[in-house]
């Protein structure tokens, strides 16, 4: 019987399927970070349980770490406690961990793929909603809460309800200047924050196939913003080529044999999906969010929307509240809105291609007066590679800050935060009220729009930056 990729991944990982109970799925890889794990490890200790498979568990410090030079102490006592707890717990339970300063440390959804530890055909979980990122490799990857983290640590399994499948087909070619980030913003806008609920999305079509692995990761990363359980991209040669030579995969003949198995992680030609969303890539443009949830998207060439456009009174109220929080007036062209802070980073966009694209725009120009712009590479490996390519110097010369790896300004948990009332152009994934700092106003953008906006001091596309 024809199966979608999701169904193949599901079927391969069923441990037990008892009558009247949820299916028990095996978890091939459990990624851990310092925020959602302390109470899980505490729970193990309280119940005298061990980690069942330390060899399937990998930890990194990312959410709380300051992005200041490594020698700078962690001043927040609670952050310090969480970072210490991660190291102590990993030591006690025998888990490989990358603490702040370690050469393999970085944002959890950046390090897995770059180390070649994230591979096709796996089930991958982490106590973080952007775990969907790893689905770019044809793996079933999703976020879990702390109790589930404890459950996976203890049993290496997770009870799961099977989701429905939705094909998100992006046909045609994206115009020049339209990036993976713009594709996923368009998808989230189309589906709405609840439109993917109950579904695992499979991203298909020419525009998706043409994306690099990093582009696919950007798209899969924001699956959760549409309410979906997970996002997937089928395996192809782009996937195999990315993984070849990485630390976590074998070499030579053994690699090629494994790659052959990976190539099977695609949906069958005659498989059917429960739902489909079709998008014409040629109609896409650079986007940004205007409001307080990731589905509130507008073309950068457009204007702040008006509640008058909406029929539903609840939706109108919600829009009014968002506009008030964001201090925006309907009808204002987005290009006339000044920015205070620009953040190039996060698990959505902080990989080497994002930095290259940003540096290309920044080169020879300077950040506008009164704008703070920071670049936070997603991991030490990304940072090192960027420095080998001279990208750091390009950014520094242009007046950007070049910082140490971590989740940084994506969420207000470490020192990188917006002050109340500040407006940001951010390459991250969430623009909820206060997400980047209390009273902060977040607009989600692609890396090239972020850099162009930093240079011009207002929302802008790269073509507006003089040659």
């Amino acid at each position, binding site marked *: 019987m024809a199966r979608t990729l999701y169904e193949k991944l599901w079927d391969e990982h069923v*441990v*037990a399927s*008892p009558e009247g109970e*949820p299916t*028990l799925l095996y978890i*091939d*890889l459990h990624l851990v970070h310092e*925020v*959602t794990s302390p*109470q899980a490890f*505490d729970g193990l200790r309280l119940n005298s*349980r061990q980690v*069942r498979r330390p*060899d*399937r568990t*990998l930890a990194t410090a990312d959410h*709380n770490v300051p992005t200041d030079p490594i020698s700078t102490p962690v001043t*927040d006592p*609670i952050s310090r*406690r*969480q970072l210490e*707890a991660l190291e102590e717990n990993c030591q006690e339970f025998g888990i*490989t961990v*990358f603490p702040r300063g*370690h050469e393999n440390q970085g944002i959890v959804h950046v390090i897995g793929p770059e*180390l070649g*530890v994230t591979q096709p055909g796996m089930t991958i979980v982490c*106590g973080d*909603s952007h775990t969907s990122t790893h689905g770019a490799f044809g793996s079933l990857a999703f*976020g*879990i*809460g*702390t*109790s*589930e983290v*404890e*459950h996976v640590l*203890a*049993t*290496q*399994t997770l*009870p799961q309800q099977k989701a429905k499948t939705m094909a998100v087909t992006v046909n045609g070619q994206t115009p020049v200047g339209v990036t993976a980030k713009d594709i996923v913003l368009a998808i989230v806008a189309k589906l709405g*924050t*609840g439109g993917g*609920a109950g579904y695992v999305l499979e991203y298909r079509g020419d525009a998706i196939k043409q994306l690099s692995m990093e582009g696919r990761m950007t798209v899969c990363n924001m699956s*959760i913003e549409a*309410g979906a*359980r997970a996002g997937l991209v089928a395996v192809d040669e782009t996937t195999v080529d990315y993984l070849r030579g990485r630390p976590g995969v074998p070499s030579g003949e053994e690699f090629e044999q*494994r790659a052959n198995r990976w190539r099977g992680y695609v949906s069958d030609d005659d498989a059917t999906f429960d739902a489909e969303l079709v998008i014409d890539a040629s109609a896409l443009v650079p986007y940004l969010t205007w409001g307080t*949830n990731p589905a509130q998207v507008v073309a950068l060439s457009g204007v702040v929307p008006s509640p008058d456009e909406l029929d539903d009174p*609840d939706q109108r109220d*919600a829009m009014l509240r968002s506009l008030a929080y964001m201090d925006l007036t309907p009808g204002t062209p987005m290009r006339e809105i000044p920015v205070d802070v620009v953040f190039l980073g996060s698990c959505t966009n902080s990989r080497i291609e994002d930095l290259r694209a940003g540096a290309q725009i920044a080169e020879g120009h300077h950040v506008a007066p009164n704008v703070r712009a920071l670049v936070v590479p997603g991991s030490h490996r990304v940072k090192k590679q960027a420095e080998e390519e001279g990208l750091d110097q390009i950014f520094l010369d242009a007046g950007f800050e070049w910082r140490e790896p971590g989740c940084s300004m994506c*969420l*207000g*948990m470490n020192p990188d935060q917006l002050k109340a009332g500040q407006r940001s152009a951010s390459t991250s994934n*969430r623009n*909820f*009220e*206060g997400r980047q700092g*209390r009273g902060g106003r977040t607009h989600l953008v692609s890396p090239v729009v972020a850099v162009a906006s930093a240079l011009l001091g207002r929302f802008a596309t790269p073509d507006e930056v003089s040659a």
Partner: protein
Amino acid sequence: MKAVSILEGRGVPLERSDVDTDQIIPSDWLKRVERTGFGRGLFSEWRDDPGFVLNNQSYVGASILVAGPRFGTGSSREHAVWALMDYGFEAVIAPSFGDIFRNNASKQGLVIVQLPQGDVEQLTEMIKQEPTRLIVVDVEHLRVEVPETGWQRDFTLDAMTRERLLNGWDDIGLTMRREKSITTYELTSHAPSLTGIFDAGGHVR
């Protein structure tokens, strides 16, 4: 986990939709290493406004939160559930919920009741009219009632969630009944582990 069969309490009408988990418990609260004390962080940004519903004296001591659609969207933070329960809520009634939030709630014993929007609006009106009205959430019979007015609606719960609530069952204990199946699966699994990739210091070999 405490067993739950029938909940009885007053309601709080949170008339907002798309309440994301960053609002339920802001990020800086995620820095705690203990499981307790999160109640003070519940809706902490909104509670700064004296007009916010949780600051309304009429609703103090209420144990059932009634909210708009897509309650609990956003981040996977289970802390959102701990905050609600630590504050004193035993159930949340709304037209729809964020997927991960609903899942997290079921692990902790916070009862999630999904009712059609129109019904939630009726319930909201009833509480606003008379804040002292009791709401009864019956997990056994899957019914919500406001005895004073005779208003009654049925709801659905995933069978396993209902069993867990009624029995106070912990997830790990339930799974370990199937340990043999896990071991059998591991013997035949193709998926590579991390063995041999890193040395004791976490450096690539």
